[in-house]
């Protein structure tokens, strides 16, 4: 991130980007990048505020258009779907955690791989369970014992082979990714990981996966943490080197997996 930020210390560049951001002439990709950087670069944020505040007067004479009657219903329904549930005790959660993982992933795998031999899906469930348990009690992990795992996603490829296990730790807002295998990509390609939002179903990038690394830890920004909290699933795609040029995932999906909030396990025990 510091390397990226260095490019945005020039006042002229910052003002050019901020003003073009506000009048909407940046590409989707550059817009997304600037929004990400503005979260940590107060100068960019200030210039965006300046231009927004000054040019907003151009909106004053825009004619009103009453929203369609179903708009609020849709908004309201989406909010209700994503509202958090009440917490239960940790002790009960841990007592039934294993049962729930088996049930959850057993259901998931039978849904995902309907038509596959039962033995295969059962094996997969056990493999996933093993992965999750390894992840939770991973001796390699530097996670302090007091810090709890919040979200976990097991990403599998089209052959039901686990590709990546992603987990997040809420207190330090860290994302830990265990790469189980490394799909073949060319030198001018990269693997990019995306969060698919529960709210708007849009995919937003969490970044490029480093090559040839099995354990990746990433400190999440506030914005990324919010994405995780609203996540439906994670996907990994093959993109051109440096990441998607348009800020959206390509059609070449290497693996995907539902993002499971551990709160849900608690609620079910």
């Amino acid at each position, binding site marked *: 991130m510091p390397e990226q930020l260095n490019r945005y210390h020039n006042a002229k560049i910052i003002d050019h980007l901020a003003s073009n951001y506000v*009048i*909407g002439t940046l590409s989707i990709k550059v817009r997304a990048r600037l929004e990400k950087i503005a979260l940590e670069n107060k100068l960019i944020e200030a210039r965006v505020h300046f231009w927004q505040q000054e*040019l907003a007067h151009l909106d004053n004479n825009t004619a*009103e258009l009453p*929203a369609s009657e179903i708009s609020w219903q849709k908004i309201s329904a989406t*909010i209700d779907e994503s509202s958090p549930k009440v917490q239960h005790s940790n002790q009960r959660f841990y007592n039934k955690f294993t049962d729930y993982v088996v049930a959850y992933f057993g259901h998931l795998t039978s849904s995902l791989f309907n038509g596959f031999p039962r033995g295969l899906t059962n094996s997969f469930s056990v493999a996933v369970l093993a992965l999750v348990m390894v992840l939770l009690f991973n001796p390699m992990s530097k996670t302090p014992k007091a810090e709890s795992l919040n979200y976990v996603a097991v990403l599998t490829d089209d052959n039901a082979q686990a590709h990546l296990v992603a987990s997040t730790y809420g207190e330090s807002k860290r994302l830990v990714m265990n790469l189980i295998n490394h799909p073949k990509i060319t030198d001018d390609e990269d693997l990019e990981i995306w969060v698919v939002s529960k709210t708007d179903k849009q995919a937003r990038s969490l970044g490029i996966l480093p090559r040839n690394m099995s354990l990746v830890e990433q400190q999440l920004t506030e914005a990324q943490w919010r994405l995780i909290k*609203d996540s439906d699933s994670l996907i990994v795609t093959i993109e051109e080197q440096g990441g998607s040029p348009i800020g959206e995932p390509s059609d070449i999906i290497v693996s995907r997996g539902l993002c499971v909030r551990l709160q849900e396990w608690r609620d079910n025990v």
Partner: protein
Amino acid sequence: MSLSLATDNKRSNSENDELMHLLSLCKLADKQAFHQLYQCTSARLNGIAYRITRNVDSANEVLQEAFLQIWKNCHDYQPDKSDAFIWLSAIVRYRAYDRVKYDKRRHQTEHVPLDEGNLETLSFNPTSNDEYSPKTLNKCLAKLEKKQSQTIMMAYLYGYSRDDISAHFNTPVNTIKSWIRRGLGKLQLCLSN
């Protein structure tokens, strides 16, 4: 609590205070306050979305996406840095810009017609008696070359890309970029002074 934003274009301090208050309640997950915020602002925000997307259905979809983003990101709102309505309208505009770009990319072979009727309204009149347009912005826009102010407003008001503007003026894109860059540079100097 009642607001009369529906018929009043002028954002008074009290209206801003009301919206700020509603946003602060939204931060506490007060859905009733969020609904009230929607009722107070949705027609104006939908008008902005329609101005850019030029399609009623798209405008409504943009509005829905924007309000979900507002609910989710209301913690990001900083009352000391921005008026509440400006923050809300910026979210709607950016969603609408992205929507226009996204639709265009999906239908790249389709020509996106420029609305000549809309362009007529872009002749900025600095002597207008529009009491709601701040004099400073009026004066500063009037100081720009006509094409510079036009391109800036075509982008801001109607979401025209540099390619669209290039096609409209039958001028290379790089020239359009230059008009916008110089125009914004002059505008920034003028507004800052």
